[in-house]
């Protein structure tokens, strides 16, 4: 188990503030955050490349904080691969084993095994210059994995790749994790990557961990508006908690709600968080599943491959965004033309809230 305790560090324009995290053995933890938020600094701090100003790092109960990077046995893979340009593929992968002083024969066996596992055996004699991005990333992974690291640290490993290569390598990372069972700490700014890969997610902003938990937990209950926005939640509806179980949505009226808002001291201002999937357009009235339902006008429709992004407007001025698939769209009686009136509902299980004060 890797445990970060209260890590503080200032490095140039980056700052880590009281970062505490736990990565269990064999777990795939994804740290999600926008670019420039200090994710790479955190990863390099774990690797021992920066010394924290305060806080401690433990691995399997042992204090790592002051240990040199070369003695930590952690593997690092960077976004731009950082392969050694003066060495061929074989020597890149063998770099650490040679430093460790292993025999030529055993190095060959190990390099061969990991190259076979990652399907790059045919590249071993090549120079790195004419490899594709995907191939380079496999080589970088092989170079780290061949050392059998305690934890594999991945710094935006898929961000430099084109979409189809990224999808392929994403599945490959999952396979590596499943078959080798290595503990992985993966940082990214990409939401779908985080959900695809992460056993658990942590969300970071300005050097601070905002939230941590299982993907569904985080998505279902973002702790603040920043996390909700980062998770791709499209709609924030201002509302006021009137009394227990009653919420007044500005413009949509008073609704009964079992949203557990702790109305400490009477009324409080909140934002309802409504992901696009929780905004439904439906043919007829009458489902209990809706927190609120009513007529809305279609204001804007954009079609992407297989989906339609729809902007809806209520007469009170409240507007909502949702995305529906082509198949859903064909089930509707009305056409999805601009200006047409549709029945709209907010799915009870999709709607949560964040308090108004932590505006971002």
């Amino acid at each position, binding site marked *: 188990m890797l445990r970060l305790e209260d890590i503080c560090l200032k490095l140039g324009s980056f700052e880590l503030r009281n970062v505490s995290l736990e990565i269990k053995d064999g777990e795939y933890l994804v740290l999600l955050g926008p670019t420039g938020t200090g994710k790479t600094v955190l990863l390099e701090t774990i*690797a021992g490349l920066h010394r924290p100003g305060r806080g401690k790092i433990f691995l399997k109960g042992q204090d790592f904080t002051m240990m040199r990077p070369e003695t930590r046995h952690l593997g690092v893979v960077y976004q731009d691969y*950082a392969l050694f340009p003066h060495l061929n593929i074989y020597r890149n992968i063998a770099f650490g084993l040679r430093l460790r002083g292993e025999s030529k024969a055993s190095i060959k066996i190990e390099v061969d095994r990991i190259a076979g596992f990652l399907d790059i055996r045919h590249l071993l004699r090549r120079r790195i210059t004419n490899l594709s991005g995907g191939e380079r990333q496999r080589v970088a992974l092989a170079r780290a994995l061949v050392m059998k690291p305690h934890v594999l640290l991945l710094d935006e490993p898929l961000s430099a790749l084109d979409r189809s290569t990224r999808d392929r390598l994403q599945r490959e990372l999952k396979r590596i994790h499943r078959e080798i069972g290595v503990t992985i700490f993966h940082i990214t700014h990409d939401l779908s990557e985080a959900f695809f890969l992460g056993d658990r997610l942590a969300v970071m902003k300005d050097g601070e961990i905002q939230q941590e938990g299982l993907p569904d937990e985080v998505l279902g209950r973002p702790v603040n508006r920043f996390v909700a926005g980062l998770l791709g939640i499209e709609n924030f509806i201002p509302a006021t908690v009137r009394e227990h179980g009653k919420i007044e949505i500005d413009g949509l009226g008073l609704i009964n709600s079992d949203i557990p808002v702790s109305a400490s001291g009477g009324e409080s201002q909140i934002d309802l968080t409504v992901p696009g999937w929780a905004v439904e357009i439906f043919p007829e009235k009458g489902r209990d599943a809706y927190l609120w339902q009513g007529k809305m006008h279609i204001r804007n429709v954009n079609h992407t491959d297989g989906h339609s992004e729809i902007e809806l407007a209520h007469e009170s001025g409240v507007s909502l965004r949702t995305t529906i698939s082509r198949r859903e769209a064909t089930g509707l009686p009305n056409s999805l033309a601009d200006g047409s009136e549709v029945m709209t509902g907010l799915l009870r299980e999709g709607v949560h809230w964040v308090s108004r004060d932590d505006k971002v």
Partner: protein
Amino acid sequence: MRSFKRRSGFDLVFALLGLILIILVVIPLFRMIVSANPEVMRSTMADGEVMSSIFLTLRAAFWATVFCAFFGVPLAYMLARRKFPGKSLVQGLVDLPVMIPHTAAGIALLMVYGRNFFLGRAFDGLGISFVGTEAGISLAMAYVSLPFLVNSARDGFALVDPKLERVARTLGASQWQSFYKVTLPLAWRPILSGGIMMWARGISEFGAVIVLAYHPMIAPVLIWERFQAYGLKYAQPVAVLLIILCLIIFAILRWLAERRREA
């Protein structure tokens, strides 16, 4: 690269301007070399004083370069990689020898390494004298030409992605090993190229050397002396010989330094 046929007016003007500069460089050398009398050249090459002074020049400049590489490469690395207080001052100091007149540099060196200063006396006590010796020649050459090596090595180090060193560390390399196995193999070309430049600059040094060590005579001093004592006719063959030798050596070194880049 664009084909020659499709060159624009822009390219033509720039190429012409550049060409004028190249001609300025080449004409004097060309004129001197073609006007050399083969008979005189032969006798010059047989002249023991000339040959030994040329070899002295090459040797002294070589040791100056080796000496500076030993201290200058680490300095270049620090300048490329680390932030430290007074860094721009250090960088300025490295560049300083290029800017001061070299005779002035020679006089400054004489004041420190001569017998009138404790440093000169201390070295003297160790049996090392810098006045009128080959060591003094190397010292003067090193002093005025070290910026070429240090700056080139610094630029070379700056081109090596620091992430490569970091990855090496996580793969079990100590800081020394990561420098030796990753950084140096990737930066050797600019370092070597800086070394060649420094050596060449050392060979051509006159001002600083003549103050500190008129004797033993390096080739530039010998050329000067023959010009003063006997005139152009006797100075020219020595100059031609030195230029031809230097051209050959640097052509070979440049070729060696470029060769593996192609491969």
